[in-house]
Structures are given as C-alpha cells and as structure tokens.
C-alpha cells in the first residue's frame, strides 16, 4: 500500500516537473530584439537592440555599387538614407513591428528581427 503511494507521489512529481518544463519550452519566446542585417543571403551584422545605449549609424556598401545608411537607436533600427532608385527601404521606417523585414530590393539588403514575437508575419 505504502509502496503504491510512494509511486504515485514520484509519478505525480515527475509529471509536474515535465509539465512545467514543456510549458516553459513551448511558450518561451525570443527576446524579439536581435536584428540581423543580411546582404544577398549573407548575415553581415547582428545587433541586439536592447543593448544599444546610444544612437549610432553605419553604412552598408552594395558590391554592385550604392549604399544604405543604417540608423540604430536604443530599441529600434531603420534605413535612414539610401541611394537606391525607389527608396522603399527608407519609406518602410523603423523595424519595429516584429515580423515585417525592411527590404532594399535594388541593393539586396534585408533588416530582419531574429525572433519576432508580436506576430508571425505582417501584411503590408
């Protein structure tokens, strides 16, 4: 009798631990603050926006000519200036909504969040 109770207790404890563990792993979200700057499929730079203390900017040169100036502020990032013909990357504004990348087609440049958390994708 006692033995059975001990078993039940062990099993219950194990189930609880397992349950908590799987709950944690299944619901855990990415921090949503790590941005990758990708050119033609290659990750040029990774920036954790939560660790940005002061504003700075840098320029990404396109191998085929042209460049984009990336502006980084605490918690956010955008293409501030670009010499591409359509300037859509500049019009897209801050990369702040989780799942929509900022894209410069002519320069094949993409700013994207590593783990968006607000949504799975953004229609735009």
């Amino acid at each position, binding site marked *: 009798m006692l033995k059975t109770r001990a078993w039940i207790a062990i099993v219950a404890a194990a189930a609880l631990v397992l349950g908590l563990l799987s709950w944690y792993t299944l619901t855990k979200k990415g921090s949503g603050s790590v941005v990758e700057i990708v050119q033609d499929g290659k990750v040029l730079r990774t920036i954790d926006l939560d660790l940005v203390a002061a504003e700075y900017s840098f320029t990404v040169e396109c191998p085929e000519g042209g460049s984009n100036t990336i502006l980084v502020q605490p918690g956010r990032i955008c293409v501030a200036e670009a010499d591409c013909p359509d300037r859509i990357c500049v019009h897209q504004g801050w990369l702040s909504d989780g799942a929509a990348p900022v894209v410069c*087609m002519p320069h094949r440049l993409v700013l994207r969040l590593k783990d968006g958390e607000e949504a799975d*994708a953004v229609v735009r």
Partner: protein
Amino acid sequence: MPRGKLMLPALLLCLLLCACGKAAERSVGFFAMDTYMSVRAVGADEETLAGCRSLAEELEAKLSVTDADSEIAALNAAGRGILSPETAELLRRALALCGETEGALDVTVYPVVRAWGFTAGAYRVPTSEELTQLLQAVDYRGVEITGEGSVLLPPGVELDLGSVAKGYAGDRLCAYLREKGVKSAILDLGGNVQALGGKADGSPWRVGIRDPDGDGMLGVVSIRDEAAVTSGGYERFFTDAEGRVWWHIIDPETGYPARNGLLSVTVVGPEGLRCDALSTALFIMGQEKAEAFWRADRGFELALVTEDGVLRLTPGLYTRFEPAKDLRCTLEVIPDA
C-alpha cells in the same frame, strides 16, 4: 502487480517523447519576383524549401514584364503569341477579375505605370496630354485569348500580371508545400502573407496589419489556410518638386494615382490570387464602392484604413482582430447590409 507499476512511467515516457517529436520549423528567405520572400514551414526539409525558391524563380521567368525573355514581355513586344498553359490560365483568371471589378483592376495599365517611372524607380509626373494618349491603349476588354492560349493584343496594348503574380505565387507555393506533406507554413511574399494550415501547436497564424500612417501595426488578425494581401500607397511613392506625393497604384480610369479616400486595403480570403487582385481593385474603388463590392461578394474579409484615420473591418474580420495597444485609428465595423 508489475504491469501496473510499469504503466505510468511508460505513459510519462510517451509524453516526453511527444514533446520532443514536435516537428522542426525551417525557414528560407530569398529574392524573387522583384521582392523579398520568406517561407517558414514546419516539417519541411531543406530540399523542399529550396524547391520553393525554384518555383518562385520559375514563375518570375514566365511572368516578369521587365525580363525581355519572359512570356509576357515577348507577348508585349510582338503583340501576339502563344502562352504556356499555366500563363494562359493565369491571364484568363486575371481578365475575369478585371471584368468582375468593372475595370478597377486592369492588366493593361502597364504603359501608364511605366510613364510614371514606377517600373524602374525613375519617377516623374507625366503631363495630362501624355496620360490621355497612353490611356487610349488601356482596356483589358481588347485582349483576345483562345482556348489554346493564343493571345492577340490590340496595337499599343501591353500586359502586366504584376497585380496578381505574387498572389498566384502564394497559391502555387502552398499547393507545392502541401504536396510535399507540409501541413503548417507561413509565407511572406514581399508583404503578401499566406498561411498553410495553422501553427504547429494548432493555433492560427497571427498576421499583423501594417499601419499605413506610422511604423507599427494596427493590430493582428488570426488566419488559417488563408491569404492576406494589403494595397496601399505608403511604401512605393515619390514626392515631386512641388511637394506632392504620388503613389504607385494607378487608377486605369484617370491615369493618375488612385486617391479615393483610402490609405490601405487589406483583403483576407482563401485564395492569394483573388486577394491580390481585389486589394488593388478595392483600393482604386474607394470606401463606398469597396464596401458595396464586399456586400455583394462575401467570399472574403476586408479591412479599410481611410484618410481620416478610421479602420473599418468586416464583421467576420472584426471577431478575429486584436487591435494594437496604441491603436490611434477609430475602429468601425462595416455594416452587413
């Protein structure tokens, strides 16, 4: 009772294994069809994802209006030609949508779009005489297509399937992934979003709708086995010397960018092609006509953002819309009747 003792640990082991067996999610991003595409799929292997890219590139090679080797460019150059069965079918469907929207969507508006410089990024404001001249060749009703895919264009008429191509690509990619046994995927084709099934955990995919008047989102809609496509003038536009803003969605009636009181139109429905076509057409129609079109059709859901800052949702979309915490728009439901 040794069997009883073994039962529970065995059950637990099963549970543990189930948790581990959660299929891996893989993603791929690539440039195709003049845009950046990304595909996230659960349980797809690398080969399947590479197949997505090839499929998009294949479609681009057939449909691109700027690639001189494409079927469409060849047809435009010669004024006549025989299309592959797939391109012919897409053209038939696109022409049907032009008819259904009474020409708000017109696949022959390309020469006007080119005159504005939207195809090459060399923006300019054409004179009204130039537009009047160009508009004479804008009429989808003049395009003749036979059952065998032989097409005849009237003089000066040029086709562009750009308003339906990405939507169609979404349908094709979803069908391809389904064929490969994938049951859960989310595609972002340059802003057109299309979902295959729901998420791996069974919940729907959460798709943000971009705020046309700011950086963030208006809110999130839940979708499953559906496409969501937005048309708006807030990304692809230019400002002329006098400070006037001109965006890329051209009204085939006037030849000027469509300015009918809307900032963006989002269409959610089962088919990417139709959502793509309707988002453009309804943007051109403006609020009243767009809502009347929805009331007559009911085969899709609709979100409109008006220039005076109102977000209007169909009842079916309202129930699965989660507004952003900092939503500045007034939220209204489009009347059912």
